[in-house]
């Protein structure tokens, strides 16, 4: 059974005013437990609206969302529990920090869940450590931290709720390349350690190609495709036509193919590209060892 399923999900903003706009149109998809999914799409393609349905922040205009086989809107009073199961980290989450200390801020979610003191303490310390926040920083004000640290505190605030599905909307936006790699590495680590489902919305194809098992592509409010990374990038021409980037290395290999050098494989990471090239060179006897 899939952990999250949508049936004909449609959402229209400001229905009945001159500003009416359908942001998500008839989306059907099934996400399996334990997957790491990359969500991509142009600005305004409806990806942010889509993910806000997964934890019940938005109620679909029509259609259903099933979490572990149960319609999340079946019982309205239960919607808060859905939010503990599906954790959502918004874009620029550091702007939602408000507590006096980092510890209290991370503890906000777990406290709302009604956990006891020891459990909250354990979760806060553990997630802080997983995200590389030193223990002494837990007693500081979140407003004194650097941008990258604030971002990690905000992500920790959601991770500490230990949701079955963790959704991150552009977790690396506005960070420097190093900060980006660190945060993505920590998210990947979290995914490996807990085995929970993780969805990452990102504009960076390189990042998605490197980390995601599956990719969900939104185009003009509709679901363009939801498939494994290999299959999605095998449609790189369609994706580029949509105005989205494909990884640089995929473009290099597409160009090589046009010039007659065909590897017969879909390439989207540099490591894999290196492997293929070395193999090809060895076949020609140019290189004996690597």
């Amino acid at each position, binding site marked *: 059974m899939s952990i999250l399923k949508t049936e004909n999900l449609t959402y229209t903003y*400001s229905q*009945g*005013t*001159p500003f009416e706009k359908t942001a998500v149109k008839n989306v059907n998809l099934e996400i399996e437990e334990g997957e790491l999914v990359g969500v991509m799409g142009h600005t305004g393609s409806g990806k942010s609206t889509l993910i*806000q349905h997964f*934890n019940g*922040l938005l109620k679909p205009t029509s259609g259903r969302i099933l979490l572990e086989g149960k319609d999340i809107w079946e019982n309205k009073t239960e919607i*808060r529990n859905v*939010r*503990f199961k599906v*954790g*959502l*980290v*918004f874009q620029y*989450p550091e*702007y*939602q*920090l*408000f507590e006096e200390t980092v510890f209290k801020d991370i503890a*906000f*979610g777990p406290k*709302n*869940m009604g956990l006891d003191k020891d459990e909250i303490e354990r979760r806060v310390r553990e997630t802080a450590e997983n995200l590389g926040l030193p223990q002494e920083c837990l007693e500081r004000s979140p*407003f004194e931290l650097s941008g990258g640290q604030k971002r990690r505190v905000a992500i920790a*605030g*959601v991770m500490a*709720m230990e949701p079955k599905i963790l959704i991150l909307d552009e977790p690396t936006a506005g960070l420097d390349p190093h900060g980006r790699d660190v945060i993505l590495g920590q998210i990947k680590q979290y995914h490996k350690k807990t085995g929970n489902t993780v969805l990452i919305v990102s504009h960076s194809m390189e990042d998605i190609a490197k980390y995601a098992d599956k990719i969900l592509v939104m185009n003009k409010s509709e679901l363009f495709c939801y498939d494994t990374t290999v299959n999605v990038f095998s449609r790189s021409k369609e994706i580029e036509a949509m105005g989205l980037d494909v990884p640089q290395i995929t473009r290099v290999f597409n160009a090589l193919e046009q010039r007659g050098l065909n590897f017969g494989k879909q390439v989207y990471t540099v490591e894999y590209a290196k492997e293929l090239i070395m193999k090809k060179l060895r076949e020609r006897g140019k290189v004996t060892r690597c």
Partner: protein
Amino acid sequence: MLKDITIGQFFPGESLLHRLDPRFKIIITCIFVVMLFIGDSVWGLVIGSVFTFGAIALSKIPNRLFVKSIKPIFPFLIFTAVLNLVFISDGDVLFKWRFIKVTEGGIETSVYMLVRIVLLIAGSSLLTYTTSPIALTDALEQLMSPLKKLKFPVHELSMMMTIALRFIPTLIEETDKIMSAQKARGAEIDSGSLRARVKNLIPILIPLFVSSFRRAEELATAMECRCYNGGDGRTRLRQLKSGGRDFAALAVTCAFMGAIIAVNLML
């Protein structure tokens, strides 16, 4: 929830009312308000209603928006009606219970008051519905410009108003976003006792204040980068122009005003 706030909102359109010069629209609205309050007979209010509904029809703005703009003042309407009903003791007594006396005059006044307030809100909402905030403050600045002679900071005031109006939607959006983010962390916003509700506002208000200060600072820097130094010698991208239709609209309004004064004198 926050999307339901319609006061001060602008609904783009191409109607006659949208195209009128904002300066004339402000003057017409002022005359309209006076008109409603000097018309203290049935006929006066009928004329006022004809004017309001005529203008609403011309604006081509959906009627439900007007209903929506009146909804929030509903408690206030009832309060006014009850006060008038109880405290005005002109004419025949129709109903008496202990110290409460309902008189003919009381009923008359409270009905008049209700109609007046509803027309007032509907009519003045029309001004903001059909005029963009920028046009509105531009017009206000020009209308108030004679006050400059008295050293009144007209430009600064209108710049402040422009910025404030400009940031209303931004702040609403920001509040919405922060509320969603805190809800995602299990915050309960619209439930619980009054005490709990006030406490629940903290996770929303603190980030909102922090980001408002950040925005203010960024805006100030951006303005200084573009050498903003007050209103002296600034020219406008959009010049306000008045034409025949603006004077015609003003004339029609004055005619209505005249009709009300005439009705008052005759009765």
